C-alpha cells in the first residue's frame, strides 16, 4: 500500500502505516478482488481481525479516539491553535486556555471525552526526532 494514494474517506477507514484508507480500497489493492464483490463491513471486519486499527468518521467508534473523529469531520478546522473539549465526536467548547475549559466543565457539571489543542500546523508531528 506504500505506493497507493488513499481514496477519499466517506465513512469507514483503516490505518495503514501513517495513512487512512477506505477499507474496501485496501482489500481491493491487496487481493485484486473487485470492490463490488464485497461490502465495506466485510472489508472492515477482515482488517480488524488482522489487527489493523479501524474507525468511522463522525461518530465515536469503538477504536477511533474522540479527537480523531472530530478532526475527521473538519469540525476542528475553525479551532486551529486553540484548545477544545470534545464529547461524542463533537466540539463541546473551545478556548485559548485549557484551565478555563476544565473549570467551565466543573462549573457546568459536564464531562468531556478529550481535551487537546488543535495543532496550528497540520503537518506538525510532536515527539518525533526525525520529523
Amino acid at each position, binding site marked *: 500500500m506504500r505506493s497507493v494514494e488513499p481514496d477519499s474517506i466517506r465513512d469507514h477507514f483503516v490505518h495503514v502505516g501513517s*495513512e487512512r484508507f477506505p477499507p474496501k480500497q485496501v482489500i481491493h489493492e491487496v487481493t485484486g478482488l473487485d470492490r463490488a464483490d464485497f461490502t465495506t463491513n466485510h472489508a472492515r471486519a477482515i482488517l480488524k481481525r488482522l489487527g489493523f*486499527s479501524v474507525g468511522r468518521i463522525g461518530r465515536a467508534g469503538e477504536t477511533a*479516539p474522540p479527537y480523531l473523529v472530530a478532526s475527521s469531520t473538519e469540525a476542528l478546522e475553525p479551532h486551529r491553535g486553540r484548545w477544545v*473539549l470534545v464529547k461524542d465526536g463533537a466540539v463541546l467548547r473551545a478556548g485559548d486556555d485549557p484551565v478555563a475549559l476544565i473549570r467551565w466543565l466543573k462549573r457546568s457539571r459536564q464531562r468531556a471525552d478529550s481535551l487537546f489543542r488543535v495543532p496550528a500546523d*497540520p503537518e506538525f*508531528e510532536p*515527539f518525533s526526532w526525525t520529523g
Partner: protein
Amino acid sequence: MDGLSFPFRPLPGSGIPRPVVDVFVGALDVVPIACLIDTGSIWNRFPAWLAREASVDLRGAPASEVSIGGHTVIARGTMVTLRIGRHEVETHASFCKPWPWDFGVLGTEGFLRWFDAQMSVANRTLTLAPA
C-alpha cells in the same frame, strides 16, 4: 492476557498511530488527559497547569531541571493517583513548566511497571493488565 486493549492512535493533529491512552489524573474526573506511552521515559510527566486542576499539592515538592523531547523544563514531582479504565495506581508524577506538548507522558517506572504490558507494534495495539 486479560486486560485493556488500546489500538494505537495518532496524537491530536498527527497522522501516525502511536501508543496513546486516556488517563484521569488525581481528582480531575471531568475529562481525561491523553498520554503518550513512552518506553524511553522513566517517569510520568504532565503540564504544570494540570496540577492545580487535579488537586495535586506540589507545596514542598523539589524542583529539578530535566530534558524532555528536546526541551529543558522545570519538573516538580509528587505522588498522584492515575486512573485508566477500571484500574487505579498511586505513583509518582512530575508537573512541568514549560510544557510545549498537548499530551502527558507515561514512563516505565512511573506507569508501565504497574502493569503487565504487551505492545504489538506490528498490530498497533497496546494491552495493559494489572501486574
